[in-house]
């Protein structure tokens, strides 16, 4: 056998018979700050239509962590899906990457999962079940270090208003009112089952206010009640009466830079009116209450502040009217002003406002006037501090609801860098495939969208509805009513929340 023949055979044999080079892909897994308490990583690999799932013990180590993958005999794309599970097997983070089998490394970023906010699980808990009042049930400290969710339970009068505080990563915070990290009651005098809380934070103080009806004297003791808590979670001894108006409804609160708050609400005083007061950080009255609206049949107010200016926006006859005020509850115009009017075919059903730079962001939800049903359209209008529209309206979504409830209120928030987040729920044909779902979409200060609308919950079984949103420095927190009956709250509805990051919004996951 010649030398050439031997070496030729060697080459042929090596190429044809020797095993393929067995290399490794090192996968580095990192997690958002809101991904914590991971005990197990559930890793699913996919290639050429086949999958493999492994559970890797995580222990107590911090992110980032690494594992390797060898795939002898395989070629092409490699899908790597990673779920972080806590000690109870509940999802706390998830992420995915697509790589190829001829690279050395791959990276997976775990986004946070949603989690249950309430700590009493019996029966129903929810941020709001008033279709007009969704969107006002979470607030954050100005530096985004903590946030507080307001909620109530399924009470049959008497009822209480509750709250629970968390840090920016979604870890519950110890409060003096709870003497633990659990939820705690904010009301000190019971109200009725028609009440819905609103919440806002200025400086170190958070106030929760609600439409109040004393179940023992419903025709005489009514109005708006308020209670504050400080940075330690210590509350005022008692709730304070802000107003004694009849038939109060839909309370909205916005903070001033001086630590005070403007509180606005609907009431019925011969006609539907919007009323407002300015309160101090302990809920005591500073100015008001006074009547904001000057046009009859006003409803569904939303307030926001920029500097010393307050924007009151509310719905009248299928359109939006506005009025502006200051830190002393003095109005800048003698009457309210038309901002948007209904068209021949569409009404505005709900309006939500947020500060945006030196002006405001005004979100409106349109619906067909013939049916008051969807699918509807949410639009963003950017305005100056005096309400002059800047640029053209921006379409947020055309899928904001296809039933009556989802045709109504939604939540908006803005960060100090001008990034806006709007969140809403939608059902039936626009649901998430398992009943109603909650969606969000982010926008830059100039109105350009940061990605498409995306599903916010990671728990999507059953209905998710009635969302609110608050800014958290570089992120947002969204809370909503969850009817999944998934652990840890398997009894009726719960309140769930999720920390959302802007790049996540852009990626739509």
């Amino acid at each position, binding site marked *: 056998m010649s030398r050439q023949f031997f*070496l030729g055979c*060697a080459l042929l044999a090596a190429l044809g018979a*020797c095993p393929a080079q067995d290399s*490794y892909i090192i996968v*580095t897994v990192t997690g958002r700050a809101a991904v914590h308490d991971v005990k197990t990583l559930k890793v699913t690999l996919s290639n050429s239509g086949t999958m493999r799932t492994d559970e890797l013990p995580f222990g107590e180590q911090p992110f980032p*962590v690494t594992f*390797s993958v060898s795939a002898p005999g*395989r070629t092409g794309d490699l899908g790597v899906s990673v779920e972080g599970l806590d000690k109870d097997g509940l999802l706390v983070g998830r992420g995915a990457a697509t790589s190829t089998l001829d690279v*050395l490394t791959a990276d997976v970023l775990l986004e946070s999962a949603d989690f249950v906010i309430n700590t009493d699980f019996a029966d129903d808990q929810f941020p709001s079940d008033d279709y007009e009042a969704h969107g006002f049930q979470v607030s954050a400290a100005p530096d985004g270090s903590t946030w507080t969710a307001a909620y109530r339970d399924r009470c049959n009068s008497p009822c209480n208003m509750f709250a629970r505080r968390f840090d920016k990563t979604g870890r519950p915070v110890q409060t003096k009112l709870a003497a633990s990290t659990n939820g705690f009651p904010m009301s000190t005098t019971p109200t009725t089952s028609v009440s819905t809380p609103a919440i806002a934070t200025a400086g170190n103080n958070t106030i929760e206010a609600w439409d109040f009806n004393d179940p023992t004297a419903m025709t005489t003791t009514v109005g708006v009640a308020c209670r504050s808590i400080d940075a330690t979670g210590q509350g005022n001894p008692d709730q304070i009466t802000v107003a004694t108006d009849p038939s109060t409804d839909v309370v909205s609160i916005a903070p001033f830079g001086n630590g005070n708050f403007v509180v606005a609400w609907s009431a019925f005083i011969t006609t539907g009116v919007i009323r407002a007061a300015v309160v101090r950080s302990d809920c005591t009255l500073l100015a008001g209450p006074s009547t904001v609206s000057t046009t009859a049949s006003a409803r569904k107010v939303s307030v926001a502040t920029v500097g010393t200016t307050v924007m009151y926006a509310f719905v009248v006859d299928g359109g939006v009217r506005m009025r502006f005020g200051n830190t002393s509850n003095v109005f800048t115009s003698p009457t309210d002003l038309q901002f948007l009017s209904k068209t021949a075919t569409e009404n505005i059903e709900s309006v939500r406002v947020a500060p945006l730079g030196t002006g405001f962001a005004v979100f409106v939800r349109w619906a067909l006037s013939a049916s008051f049903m969807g699918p509807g359209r949410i639009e963003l209008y950017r305005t100056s501090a005096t309400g002059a529209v800047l640029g053209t309206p921006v379409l947020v979504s055309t899928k904001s609801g296809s039933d009556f409830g989802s045709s109504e209120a939604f939540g908006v928030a803005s960060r100090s860098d001008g990034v806006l987040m709007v969140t809403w729920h939608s059902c039936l044909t626009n649901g998430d495939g398992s009943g109603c779902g909650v969606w969000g979409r982010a926008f830059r200060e100039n109105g350009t969208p940061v990605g498409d609308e995306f599903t916010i919950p990671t728990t999507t079984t059953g209905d998710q509805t009635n969302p609110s949103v608050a800014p958290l420095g570089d992120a947002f927190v969204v809370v909503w009513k969850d009817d999944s009956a998934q652990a840890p709250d398997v009894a009726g509805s719960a309140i769930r929340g999720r920390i959302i990051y802007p790049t996540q919004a852009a990626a739509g996951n």
Partner: protein
Amino acid sequence: MTAPLLRVICTFCVTLLLAGVAYAEEPEMRSAKRHFDRGQKLFTLGKFDEALDEYQKAYDASPLPDFLYNIGQCHRNLGDYEQAIFSFKRFLQLDPDAPNREKVEIIIDELEDKLEHQGAKKKDPPPPPPPHAESTPVYKKWWFWTGIAVVGVAGGVGVYAVTRPDGPPDTNLGNIVFTK
């Protein structure tokens, strides 16, 4: 002699040959594996300068062409594009049939574009020393390609030995074998 029988015999010959090489170089291979594993870990952590040092030590211990690819990736991540191009080209010269050849060529093109974009004076990497100073181009010699093939096979087997399942990279959570 039938083709299947010929193939079996040839496989046996190669196995014997490479087993002898592997046995003879076992201490070097162990050293290479150690440095390679360290390099992989450091690379994953983004410590490219330290990873580069380990890959170079691995190459010193066992000059497998594949290590040059890793060395090139370190230079690339460190922003040393000229050295990266040199390493990648050297890798392709020593392993012209590398399965990732197309990808490496794309990387080289990208790096050369970056060099031009930076306005840096682009320098061609020094050519590898010719194995023989003959008038006939070396790549037209039969033994060159055969030799490259054997070196490539030996290199492939060498890397296989370095990274086979009894020696997966050092990670926090271990290795997952995704069998076909």
